[in-house]
């Protein structure tokens, strides 16, 4: 018996429409920071790397979804084995150069690792990127009509915004959780993380996906970096400098989660636009 037969959730995530469908649908809603990030990476790596990057991002996303975020595609170690382990990523891993301390699990595409190191070590480069993305955030906030009335920086401030954004997408509020169910029997659950430091350092959201028949076996997304492996660049919505960028981040992540919900609906209907 395979793992997918053990848990209905694993069976459904195996039918995921994939990174490109999810990314395109999310972009059609007016969100673009992830696209700008991918463009800058492509610019850094060179056009000749586009196909490798796209394939790398596709397969990392699929492994992340199929392992419910419980594994590291760059080290090829998984707590939950993806049903379709990527041969392409296995080959990149086998061919990678020696690991440079202290980076134990670098990205498997060389230019991505070079970009990472430049961001990590080169303060000037990092600050230029930061300024550019904060400008893009401001423009996107204005374009999407983001207002941050009532935002003081506390985690609990997120509740009315999650309520407004979630209800608009047909998530039903149950206490301090917002839930919707798709036609594959999966429940998509949004929570606000109010524990720990009462102030925000990123959008204080926790997402869970589970099958209605087995609520305890869940794809839990407490660290929003998981979403950035499903759609590269959405981590930019977690870079918050002020009230508007926090609200933009909350809206962006909730809308993306809703897109993921639709990308896990019955495949024949929903992946057609891909």
């Amino acid at each position, binding site marked *: 018996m395979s793992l997918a037969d053990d848990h209905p959730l694993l069976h459904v995530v195996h039918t995921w429409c994939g990174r490109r469908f999810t990314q395109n649908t999310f972009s059609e809603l007016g969100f673009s920071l992830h696209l700008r990030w991918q463009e800058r990476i492509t610019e850094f790596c060179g056009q000749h790397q586009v196909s490798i990057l796209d394939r790398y991002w596709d397969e990392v996303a699929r492994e992340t979804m199929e*392992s419910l*975020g*419980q*594994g*590291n595609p*760059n*080290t090829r*170690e*998984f*707590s*939950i084995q993806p049903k379709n382990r990527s041969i392409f990523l296995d080959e990149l891993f086998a061919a990678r150069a020696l690991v440079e301390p*202290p*980076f*134990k*699990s*670098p*990205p498997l595409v060389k230019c991505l690792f070079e970009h*990472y190191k430049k*961001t*990590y*070590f080169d*303060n000037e480069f*990092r600050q230029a*990127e*930061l300024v550019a*993305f*904060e400008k893009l955030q401001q423009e996107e906030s204005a374009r999407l009509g983001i207002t941050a009335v009532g935002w003081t920086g506390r985690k609990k401030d997120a509740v009315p915004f999650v309520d407004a954004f979630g209800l608009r997408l047909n998530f039903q509020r149950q206490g301090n959780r917002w839930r919707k169910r798709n036609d594959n029997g999966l429940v998509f659950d949004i929570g606000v993380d109010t*524990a*720990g*430091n*009462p*102030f*925000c*350092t*990123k959008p204080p959201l926790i997402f869970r996906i589970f099958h209605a028949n087995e609520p305890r076996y869940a794809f839990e*997304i*407490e*660290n*929003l*970096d*998981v979403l*950035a*492996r499903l759609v590269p660049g959405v*981590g*930019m919505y*977690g*870079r*918050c*400098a002020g009230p508007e960028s926090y609200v933009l981040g909350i809206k962006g992540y909730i809308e993306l989660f809703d897109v993921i919900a639709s990308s896990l609906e019955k495949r024949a209907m929903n992946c057609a636009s891909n």
Partner: protein
Amino acid sequence: MHQHCEPVDPFTHVHEAQGQVYFGALQSLFRSTPILGSILQIAAVASLCTSAVGVCAAVVATLSSAFVAGVTSGNLGAALKAGLITAVTIVAFNVVGGMTNVAEGGQFSLLNHTPAAFGTGAYAFNVAGHAAVGCLTTMASGGKCGSGALAGGAGAAATPLIQTASNGSFVGGLAMSSVVGGVASVAGGGKFGNGAVTAAFGYLFNSGAGSISRMLDGQDAHRALQQWLQRQGIDGLFTEASSDGLGTSFWGRVDIGNAISGEIWEIKPNNPVQLFLARVMAEFYAATADGPTQYDAGGNGLPLPTGALNTVRGSYTYTNAGDGAILWSYNNANQSYTFSPSTSPKFVLPPITPIPVIP
């Protein structure tokens, strides 16, 4: 006649017997060397509440007093009485601290106390208040008013000097206050241990306080750096998270982690005790990380802001002390609403006037 026997679990029986032996030994120790009980009470607060959270210190102080009295006397009533007296003492010291704020022209607060400047009316009021509390609580415990008053008053009087000498160290200040209070108590005909505890509690809950303010400053300093790091857009870097998003979870919320380098850092105030704690916590999180990625205490490579980070509440600078410790310091010397080594009033000895030599 049939005699009913209760079955005896030999394992439980042996453990009960061992427990009685340990209790008896501890009781003998506390009775023969009473100072040990006092040291335990002060050390419990110092070791368990080194981040100086007021509620933690109050609870630990009350429980440790009750424990020591209970073990020493073997009497539950004595334990409850000691705990109650400690709780009342804590409230009383906090009231004195709040009233000292008012004497200095500030607002009454049970939790936030501004240290009174040496030689001012507020300073005199604070010393007198501590003496009064010391007197009353010592009498309630069956001791002499004079020794309690001296212990409480001397501890408060020496606070400006202690704060300067301890360089802001919570544990150092506590130890110095204890010694001053103990010596003063002996001078008044009381026991060293009782005076040490009175003065230590006075320091904890009043003169050395501002603990809530410091806790809020700590949260603020954490938030400022974590938000700054999030904004840098470095892949794999996560803050205040109990998982790395790659299947590895931690026993608590890690302040800063890097999934690509497998490093963990803890943010703490800049003093030797907290440096030690930061390193211990980083090692703890690394050792207990559960998942495919191996973690270690963080190295020196983590990008940090080159200048101070300013928030509505304050301004902070950060240093990477290595081995997983990121230390924050106050940048603005005018953060008057908080206790800090740089803002506490300096104790300056009056100038020595040379005695004119009479020919």
